[in-house]
C-alpha cells in the first residue's frame, strides 16, 4: 500500500545540511498496524507527515496505492485525504466552534455525501463509540479521552483505508490511553484498516503488529510484534 524508497529530508542552513531523515526505505502493506518509535528528534513525526503528504521529502520516491505521490498537486492530494486517509492528532484538534456531531459530519460534507447517508453514518459512529449523549456538546465540554474518541470517529467517518495517528494517547491518562489503543487494535483487526502511529510508549507499540525503530533519521530496526 505504501512504498517508501530512499526517502531523505534535510533542512539546509548556511550550506550545512541538517538531516531529519536519511535513506528511509520501507513498505507498509494493507492491514498492517505499524508503530513508529524512537527518541525525541529522531524524525518520527516527519516520517508520518511525509506519509500523510503534509510534508514533501527532499529526495526519494513515495508510492501510495501504487501511485507516485512524491509531489502531488493539491487537488489530487485532497482527493486522497477525502477517500483514503484519516488523521488523529495528539492534541485532538477538534474544531472548537462545532459540536461533536458537526465535527464528525465535517469530512462527510467535503466528501459530498448525501444527508441521509451522512446521518446514518454519524449515528453509527456515535453509537459505536458510546457518545450519543454527547453529540450536541462542544469539544471544550468533553474530557481528553472523549475528545480523542470524537477525533477518531471523525477520522473514521469518511471510511478511510488508512489512519495516521501522531501520538494519539500523548495527552491522555493511562486508563483512557488503553481504551484508545484497544479501539485501534479492534479497528485494525475487525475492519482491516491500516494504522500507522507514532508513539513513545513501548506498551502502546505492543498493540500493533510491527515496530519501526528510528534514531537520527535512520531506520534502525524493523520488528514484528509477536502476539
Amino acid at each position, binding site marked *: 500500500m505504501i512504498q517508501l524508497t530512499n526517502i531523505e529530508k534535510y533542512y539546509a542552513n548556511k550550506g550545512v545540511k541538517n538531516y531529519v531523515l536519511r535513506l528511509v526505505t520501507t513498505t507498509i502493506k494493507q492491514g498492517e498496524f505499524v508503530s513508529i518509535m524512537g527518541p525525541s528528534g529522531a524524525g518520527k513525526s516527519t516520517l508520518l507527515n511525509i506519509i500523510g503528504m503534509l510534508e514533501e521529502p527532499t529526495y526519494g520516491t513515495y508510492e501510495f496505492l501504487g501511485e507516485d505521490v512524491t509531489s502531488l498537486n493539491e487537488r489530487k492530494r485532497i482527493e486522497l485525504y477525502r477517500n483514503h486517509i484519516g488523521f488523529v492528532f495528539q492534541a485532538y*484538534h477538534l474544531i472548537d466552534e462545532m459540536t461533536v456531531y458537526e465535527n464528525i459530519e465535517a469530512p462527510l460534507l467535503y466528501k459530498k455525501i448525501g444527508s441521509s447517508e451522512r446521518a446514518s453514518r454519524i449515528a453509527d459512529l456515535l453509537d459505536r463509540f458510546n457518545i450519543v449523549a454527547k453529540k450536541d456538546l462542544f469539544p471544550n465540554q468533553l474530557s481528553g479521552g472523549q475528545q480523542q474518541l470524537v477525533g477518531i470517529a471523525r477520522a473514521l467517518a469518511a471510511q478511510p483505508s488508512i489512519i495516521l495517528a501522531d501520538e494519539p494517547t500523548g495527552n491522555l491518562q493511562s486508563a483512557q490511553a488503553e481504551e484508545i489503543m484497544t479501539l485501534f487494535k479492534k479497528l485494525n483487526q475487525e475492519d482491516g484498516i491500516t494504522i500507522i502511529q507514532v508513539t513513545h510508549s513501548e506498551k502502546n507499540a505492543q498493540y500493533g503488529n510491527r515496530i519501526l525503530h528510528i534514531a537520527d533519521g535512520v531506520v534502525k530496526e524493523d520488528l514484528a510484534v509477536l502476539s
Partner: protein
Amino acid sequence: MFKLNLKIALRNLWRNRGITSINVGGLAIALAAFILVVLYFTYETSFDKTNPNYNNIYVVGRIEPDFKTNYTSPPLAKAIKQNFPEVENAGITKRGFFEFTMKNGNNTLFAKNFMQADFNAAKILDLKPTGGLEKPAGVADRLSYLSEENMKVLFPNKTDNKPEMVGMGPSNSGITSKINGSIANNLHSNITFDGISIGNEIGQGENYGYNNYTTYIQVKPGTDVANLEQKITDLYRKELLKGETDQKTIEEIKGVSTFLDPLANLHLRPKAGNDAPYKILIALFVLGILILVIACINFTNLSIAQATKRAKEVGVKKVMGAYRFQLTTQFLTEIFIQCFVATILALTIAELALPYFNNLFQVNLSIWNIENNLFWQLPLILCLITFVAGTYPALVLSGFKPALVLKGNFSTSKQSSWLRNGLLIFQFSIAVIFIIGLFIINAQLKYMRTQDLGFTANQVVYIKNISLFHKPEKFAPVRDKILKIQGIKSVTVATGVPDGSENGGNGYTVNGVQKSIDFVDVDFDYFETLDIKLKEGRFFSKSFSTDTTNSVVINESAVAKYGIKNPVGQTIRGCNIDYKIVGVAKDFKAQGFESAVQPTIYAIKNPCGNSKTKIMVKIEENRMADALAALKAQWPQINPQDGEDFRYEFLDELYGKLFKKQEQLQSVFFAAALLTIFIAILGLFAFAKYITNGRIKEIAVRKILGASDIQIFKLINSSFFIMVLVANVISWPVAYILTKKWLETFAYRIDLPVLPFVSSATITILLAVITVSIQAKKAVKANPVDALKYE
C-alpha cells in the same frame, strides 16, 4: 456545507464578540462618514441635472481687463440668437435687487428675490409654473408666479391654480399686482427665487451699458463651444464698436471678451468666481475614501491578528479534504457578513447623523429617497469593502500549512513590516493634523468672540424699513416718537449697519492727495447708539448747525491712510463738497475679523451716497421685550409709509453670522478629529493585538527570567510610543503650514500658539499607551506556563 460554515462563522463572531463589535463598529462608522460624503458629493455635483438640456446650456459672461462677471446686458442674447444657427435658444434673467412686501389681507410676504426672466430663458431653464409654462400674450404682458411656499404664505387656503390679486408695499399704497399662479422653486438648482415674472421680452430699450442681466444660451448638441465662444466675443466687440469714435474707448473694447460657462459648472466652479467650493468638495471626497480605505485596512489587520485562533480549524479542514478555495470562500463569507452588518449599521448611523449634517451644511439631504443613487451604490460599496478588507485575510488564513499549525505551538509572525508601521504612522499623522486644526480654530473663534470689536452690538436692534430718510429733518420726528417709548436709549439711521457688509467707496481729497475710502452716511446718535469710542475731536451734535451740511467724522484708519497730523479741523473734499473733519473715531470691526478695518468717512450730508434706510435703536436690556412690543404697536404712527411691516433683527445676532463659516469649519474639524483619532486607535488596537499575540512566548520567557510587569509594559509600548511620536513630528510642519495659511485669511488673528502642538502629542501618545497597555495586559497577566506548554 454553507449552512455549517455560516453556523461556525456566527459562533466564532459571537465568541469573539468584543473584537467583532470593534471591527464591525469601526467599519460602520467610517462607512457612515463615507455615505454622508457621497450623499453630499452627489447633491453638490447634480445641481440642475434635472434639466433635460443640462449639457447644452451655457451662461455667457464677460471678461473685462480686471475682472470676470456673469452680468451681461439685454441686447447680447438677441444678437447671439440672430447670428449663430448653432444656438438653439438664448434668454436673459434679472435678479430682484431689493426686498418688497406683498399682501393679501393680513398675510404678508417679504419677497427678497423676485426674479425676472424672458420666455426664452424660462424655456431654457426648464421653469415649471403649475399648469405648465405659458407664453405671455402681448409684448408688454408679464406672467407673475410665486414659489409654492410663498403662495402658501399669502393664500394658505388656496387649492385651485387661478390668478390672484395681491397688494404691493404697504396697504395704503394702493398698488396691486396680478399673480398668475405658483411655480416650483427647485432649491437644487442655480436658479432660485421667491417669485418670478416672465415676459416675452425684458429689458427693452436697455442697451449694452446695462449689465444687470444673466444671459443663458442653449446650443445644439455637438456644437464646438470653443469656436462659438470666439465668435460671440467677436460679435460682442462688433456690437460695442457700433457708432463708437473715441479712440481710447475703441482700444478698451478690444480688451473685452466673452466666455461660455457650462450650467454644470455654475454651482461649484463658475468661471466668474472661484472654484474653492469645488476643491473643498474634492478634498472632502478624497478624505471620505481615505477614511474608508484605512478602516478597511484596519479591519484586515484585526482579522489577521485573530488568525491564530482559526489556524487549527484551517489545518484540520485541510486534512479532512477541504480545497483551499473552499476555505477562502468560507472566510470571505464571514467577512461579508461582518461588512453587511457594518453597512446596515452605517446606514443607521448616517440616518441619525443626517439632521446635524444637514444643519451644518445648510442642505436637505435624505437617505430614503427613491431616486437616491445610494441604492445601487451601496451594494457595490459593500462588495468593494468585502473585497478590499477580506481578500488578504482570506488568503492568509486559507494558506496555513497543516503540518505547521497542527503541531500545536503555532503563532503568527511577530514581524512588523514597514508597510504596517507606515500605515499606523500615517493614520496618526492625519489625526494629529485634525486635532491641531481643531485647537487652533477653537482658539481663533474664542478670540473673535471675546475680542473688543470697538463697538457694542448688544441691545441694538436693527429695524428694516423702506422709507428714505436722507435728510435729518425728515428723520427727526421719527426719532422723537421712538424715544418716547420707555427703555429706548438712542435712535439713528444710516446707510449701513456693522454686520460685515461692505460699504460704498468714493474718492476723497485731503491736502491735494486723493484716495478712495469707504463712506457711511449716518444721522445723529450713530456713534452713541453703537457705543463707538472717540479718539479726538467730537461726534455729531445737534448743537452745531454745520453738522448737517459739511461736518464729517473719519476713523483712525482713514487718518493713517492720508497720513494727516492733527486731523481735527482739516478739510476733506469729496462729492464736490469741502467737508470739515470734526472728530476721529477709534477703529471698529464693522466688517468682521477677516478684512482689516477700512478707512471710512462718516457724514450726515452726502449727495453721492445711497439713501439712509437702516434704523438702529439701542434699548435697555431689561426693557427689551416691552420696548419691542411698543415699537411694533406704534410703528404705523411712527413710520406711516412702512408702518404695517415692523421687522427687526438683533445686531449681535446679525454680526454673529460672520462667525458662521468658522463655526461650520469647527464642527467639521471636530467630527473629523474624532473620526480620524477613532480610526487610528482602532488601527493601533489591531496592530498591538497582532504584535502581542506574536510575542506571547517571548513575554512568558522574559517573565520567567525575572522581568517585572512594568518592564514588560515598557517593552511593548516603546515601539508604539516611537511611532506615534514620529507621526506627531511629521504632522507638525504640515499642520503649522495649513493653520498659518488659514489664520492669514484673518486680518485680526491670534498668534499661532504652541499649546495645540504639545496637546496633540500628549493626547495621541496617551491614547496610544492606554490602547497598547490594554492589549499588553493580557499577555503580561497570563501564566507563562500556558504559553510555554508545548515547548
